[in-house]
């Protein structure tokens, strides 16, 4: 071990003494900055991942859509099923309807799905809280949880559905009765907007409600694990023109790029702002080490008198900054993960104390605080924290190296 490292360790953790105050404060500053970054970026990453999960779980990895609707779904389905990388295909038809129960109206998005195929693409079964997807037929409906709650519907209730086509016909003085569908399931995806507005029916019912005949609005596709959805969509677009000239495949990232851009931008902004906490902590490290240089002027002189080179004296302070940075970063990672582990308990306690549980779910749309830290984000935080802290030692190191041993010894 070089003597500069040995002395740096001894100065930070002296023999026979407790953790020195200066060291503790410096380490604590870096630790808090790192912990805050870990928690914030994890929560932002969690939100991003939840959003991705919800998009993929409601749209599939790739969607093929036509301008208007596809009139030859069987042909397109046959092509998509044999396309490379595609492991599941399910047609869909969608649109807004008016839904009424006990004279309470709602205007949800109705999704017509092929119940024999949908689970190959979207794990809908996982989100059914009561009832069953198997019970869904042309005369029944599955409601999202908050929608069911808001109109007072439950399993066995009947809801009346008015489609735009039905309303058009009514305007033309035709006597049309709304479709009466039985609620056979309640689903909950975990996202407030989806859980307040999504209704599932069979694709046949949707085709009938929107007058599509045999047509569908598009197909949701599941892509093989590990294959880039953008790449898969590009490949599909080379074969689609043969069967559906007006259809176009888009990955979930492509379809939601504006939204994902905003999510990423928010995460980057939070990262940028919070990194300043580490910069401030680094200034505290610089200040502590500068004080140490002043306090230890004679010792620095002594090191010179004992044959120490200015470069080694400087290294002693650089090592100290590096050790503070590493200790603070390790502590910060530990503290960050500790807070993340108990995040929902912390939020629950906080919202209970402030009476804001409902507001949290309403505005943040998640029932639990999600958290996910990618390896890339983790190493970026660790790397930046250690680098910034180490840079904090450069000024004190330079000051120490510039001290002439004889001047330092005379400082008495």
């Amino acid at each position: 071990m070089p003597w500069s490292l040995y002395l740096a360790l001894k100065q930070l953790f002296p023999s026979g003494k407790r953790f020195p105050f200066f060291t503790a404060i410096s380490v604590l500053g870096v630790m808090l900055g790192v912990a805050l970054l870990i928690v914030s970026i994890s929560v932002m990453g969690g939100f991003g991942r939840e959003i991705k999960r919800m998009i993929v779980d409601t749209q599939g990895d790739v969607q093929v859509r036509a301008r208007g609707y596809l009139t030859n779904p069987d042909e397109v389905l046959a092509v998509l099923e044999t396309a490379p990388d595609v492991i599941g295909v399910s047609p869909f038809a969608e649109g807004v309807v008016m839904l009424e129960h006990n004279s309470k109206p709602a205007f949800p998005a109705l999704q017509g799905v092929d119940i024999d195929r949908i689970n190959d693409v979207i794990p809908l079964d996982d989100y059914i809280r009561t009832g069953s997807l198997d019970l869904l037929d042309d005369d029944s409906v599955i409601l999202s949880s908050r929608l069911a709650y808001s109109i007072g519907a439950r399993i066995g209730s009947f809801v009346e559905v008015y489609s735009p086509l039905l309303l058009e016909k009514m305007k033309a003085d035709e006597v049309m009765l709304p479709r009466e569908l039985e609620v056979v399931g309640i689903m909950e995806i975990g996202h407030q907007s989806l859980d307040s507005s999504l209704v599932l029916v069979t694709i046949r019912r949707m085709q009938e409600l929107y007058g599509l005949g045999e047509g569908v609005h598009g197909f949701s596709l599941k892509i093989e694990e590990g294959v880039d959805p953008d790449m898969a969509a590009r490949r599909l677009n080379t074969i689609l023109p043969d069967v559906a000239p007006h259809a176009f495949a888009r990955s979930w990232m492509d379809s939601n790029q504006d939204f994902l851009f905003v999510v990423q931008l928010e995460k980057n902004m939070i990262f940028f702002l919070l990194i300043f906490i580490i910069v401030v902590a680094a200034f505290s490290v610089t200040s502590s080490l500068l004080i140490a240089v002043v306090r230890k002027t004679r010792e620095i002189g002594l090191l010179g008198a004992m044959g120490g080179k200015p470069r080694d004296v400087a290294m002693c302070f650089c090592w100290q900054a590096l050790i503070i940075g590493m200790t603070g970063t390790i502590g910060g990672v530990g503290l960050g993960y500790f807070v993340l582990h108990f995040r929902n308990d912390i939020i629950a306690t906080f919202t209970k104390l402030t009476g804001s549980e409902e507001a949290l779910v309403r505005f943040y749309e998640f029932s639990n605080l999600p958290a996910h830290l990618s390896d890339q984000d983790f190493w970026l935080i660790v790397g930046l924290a250690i680098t910034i802290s180490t840079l904090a030692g450069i000024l004190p190191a330079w000051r120490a190296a510039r001290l002439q041993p004889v001047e330092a010894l005379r400082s008495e």
Partner: protein
Amino acid sequence: MSDVILQAEGLSKSFLSGERTLEVLRGVDLSVEAGQSVSICGESGSGKSTLLHALAGLDAIDEGELLWDGSTDTGAERRGRFLGMVFQSFYLIPELTAFDNILMAARMLGRVGKPERDRAASLLDRVGLVERADHVPAKLSGGERQRVAVARALMNQPRLILADEPTGNLDEHTGEAVIALLLELSQETQTALVLVTHNKGHALKTDRQVLMQEGRLIDSNSGH
């Protein structure tokens, strides 16, 4: 033929004080032989400490030549091997134990194996501080600290020890003991000693006494 290990010829050093130039060293000549002890006495401000720092290669000289063992290499790397220093204020590293302070001298040369540890332990024993090995300087008395500093100066088996008023912060009795130890050890190890002191009694115990007066050295033995 005598074995001269320190040769200073015509050392001159001046400082600027405002618009005035203070000549602190005026053509100092000094040679020290291996194992010889030399004391430098003189009034405060006569240039004793400046001379010592110049001899240690710590202070750049304006004129003259300094040779260590016949070589002009007086750089930091060689300093750690060639000489040991003892200061009035001990200058122990407060975070290190007595043992580690002594070993630090070897550590700075990149040598911390068993032979060095054994030597540090034997030096600690020689200065009578075996039981204080694990004590940090704050828990040692002034005399004990200076004994640790003496042991540290001898750690790398230097050819020369430069001691700058080593008893200045000690009471008379302790000071006597430290000087006796310093002379004894330098004799035992055949290490030359240059001792800067105010105390004529201590000076008389060395092989040779020189007087520093207005930046010049007067060798009391030769009458110059």
